[in-house]
């Protein structure tokens, strides 16, 4: 007989160690998969996790890749902590990119220190407004925010498609679906010559710090936490639930919008149809792997970013199929959820009691 019962209390230390365990189990399972695919596991893992970051360029690329993931996940943590399931960060990123990119095109060939801050602000506001749609619909019409935010992803992607094919396409670009390259005044400054790491990383770091302050040092953070633990308690305590829903979606959308605008003014430098390789969805894994904790999210974004880089190097050096990167992301989440289950529940093997005289 097997019985599953809830544990009375869980250790805080173990709570933050299980992600590490999940990563370790992923490495073991990954080694087995590489072995079954006919690769030397040690070599494959080396090319996957060490080679990509064994030089300065690699480290810079890791940060370039982790920056949007970290930003989005920070925003998502506000939503997820308070039981609001914003699945549409990808859409908010795209819409932020559209609004920010629009401003960048508006200021095409303008020089001036104000251009870049305006673009960044526009991107944040764009993402914020786009995230308010599911929030307002949830508050006033009790709609399901998962569905609404997810469907809006396609809306914003189609809007971007329309803009880069039509009205915003580069007039000298032979109708190819992309805008002009932004002027230099509209680009995030590069931090080191020859590397791609850009000032966007500071936006991410400031967001991490602000998120930490808000979540742990303010009344609002307390409200978010309580609402996540028990909605009834939050209501009983007299928290204003509707305002909070709107607020967490706004934070989340603004972060995603910043990530979008950081990509187009950073490494990409223009608008086209592929401004994000689904960062908005991958950031959901990052948020949970980081335990919805700002510091945890920083580490989680670095690890998940590494799986992208690793998949590329492993293919270059060993011709390992590129999709192993996604397999690794999936495995990390799987092992995390599995160990969470064991963390919160205990499995008891019961023996039938013998009749005692």
């Amino acid at each position, binding site marked *: 007989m097997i019985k599953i019962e809830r544990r009375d209390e869980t250790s805080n230390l173990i709570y933050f160690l299980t992600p590490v*365990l999940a990563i*370790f189990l992923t*490495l*073991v399972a990954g*080694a087995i998969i590489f072995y079954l695919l006919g690769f030397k*596991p*040690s070599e494959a*893992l*080396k090319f996957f*996790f*060490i*080679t990509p970051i*064994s030089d300065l*360029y690699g480290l810079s*690329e890791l940060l*370039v890749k982790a920056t949007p993931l970290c930003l989005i996940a920070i925003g998502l943590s506000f939503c997820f902590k308070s039981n609001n399931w914003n699945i549409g960060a990808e859409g908010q990123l795209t819409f932020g990119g559209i609004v920010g990119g629009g401003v960048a095109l508006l200021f095409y060939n303008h020089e001036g220190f104000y251009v870049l801050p305006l673009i960044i602000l526009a991107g944040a506001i764009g993402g914020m407004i786009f995230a308010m749609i599911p929030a307002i619909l949830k508050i006033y019409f009790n709609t399901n925010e998962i569905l609404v935010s997810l469907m809006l992803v396609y809306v914003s992607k189609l809007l971007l*498609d329309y803009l880069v*094919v*039509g*009205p915003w396409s580069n007039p000298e670009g*032979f*109708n*190819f*679906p*992309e805008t002009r*390259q932004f002027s230099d005044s509209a680009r995030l400054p590069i931090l080191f010559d*020859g590397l*791609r790491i850009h000032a966007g990383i500071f936006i991410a770091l400031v967001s991490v710090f602000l998120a930490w302050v808000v979540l742990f040092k303010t009344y609002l953070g307390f409200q978010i936490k309580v609402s996540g633990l028990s909605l009834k308690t939050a209501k009983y305590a007299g928290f204003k639930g509707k305002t909070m829903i709107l607020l967490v979606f706004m934070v989340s959308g603004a972060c995603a919008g910043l990530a979008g605008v950081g*990509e187009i003014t*950073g*490494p*990409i*430098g223009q608008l*086209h*149809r*592929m*401004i*994000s*390789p689904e960062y908005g969805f991958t950031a959901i894994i990052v948020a949970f792997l980081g335990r919805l904790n700002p510091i945890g999210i920083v580490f989680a974004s670095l690890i998940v970013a590494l799986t*992208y*880089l690793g998949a*590329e*190097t492993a*293919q*270059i*050096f060993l*011709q390992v*199929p*590129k*999709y192993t990167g996604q397999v690794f992301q999936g495995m990390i989440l799987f092992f995390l959820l599995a160990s969470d289950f064991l963390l919160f529940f205990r499995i008891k093997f019961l023996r039938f009691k013998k009749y005692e005289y």
Partner: protein
Amino acid sequence: MYKYFLRLLASVLLLLGFSMSANAEFKVGFVYVGPTGDHGWTYQHDEGRKAVEAAGIKTTYVESVPEGADAERVIRQLAQSGHDLIFTTSFGYMDPTNKVAKDFPNVKFEHATGYKREHSNVSTYSARFYEGRTLLGHMAGKMTKTNVIGYIASFPIPEVIRGINAMTLAAQKVNPNIKTKIVWVFTWYDPGKESEAAQALIDQGADIIMQHTDSTAPVQVAEKAGVWSFGQASDMQRFAPKSILTSIIDDWAPYYVERSIAARDGTWSQQDTWHGLKEGMVAMAPYNSAMGSGLVKEVEKLQKDLASGKAHSFTGPIYDQKGNLLVAEGKVADDGMLAGMSVYVKGVEGDIPK
């Protein structure tokens, strides 16, 4: 318990170890936009890579590289890891290719379908797919009963418009009553959208379906509906054996082998290549015998004439939709005009999306 894990962790870390080996061997790298198993665009580029490998040159590829911020890193990594020649096989790699080329003057770069060659180590190449479209138009004009030809188009760039025009001109020559109906899907590869487009065209009376997109969905829809179709990029015959009359095949192999050998032997130089039926970069899959041996012979002759230069896809007089003369009688369109083509010829329905 945790001691056990620590021991396991330590042993895994030990197994990893560092070693970077510098390699002087000549290597060619390929960057693909899709998976090698797409049976279309990327599949054909990978066939080309295999030919290079068969010629005794070591190759590497990275598949499914998004055309965004990731492309530059992948191209740079290939350059950094000792690849001497790098083929970037999608339009969206144009700016990243030129950017990396600037930092690696000793590495040669070949970018497919683009127009920027900002550094002397960047070449561009593309194929005259429109010559294949001319053959398709000839067959379509002869085979249609409804006089409506359905065309699934991707993006309104010159290459796609050129194909639509070449096909329409050739079809008009053998059947003045034909109309070309176009559905723009704004994607290169999306089986769902492509099959919806094919169905919509069939519902509008098209009994010929052709595509400038890469999935096999349209030919499969055509097979089911019992109308004729044409494959794209690779021989798609096995996906719609009854419906497909032929496929336009992109054969990159000869070019890839030639350029790789040139780069290895030090004779590589910058160029803008635009090869067609003559050089074999555009090839035709076997013709379906269902169209009758008479028509097959006609098309084979036209194919030979296009290859030898006796015939040209854009021979005047050619008029645009409004009736303005584009190419005078007895003249052929020059490459400059073809490269920038952005208007429909007479007989195409609808407007180019703006």
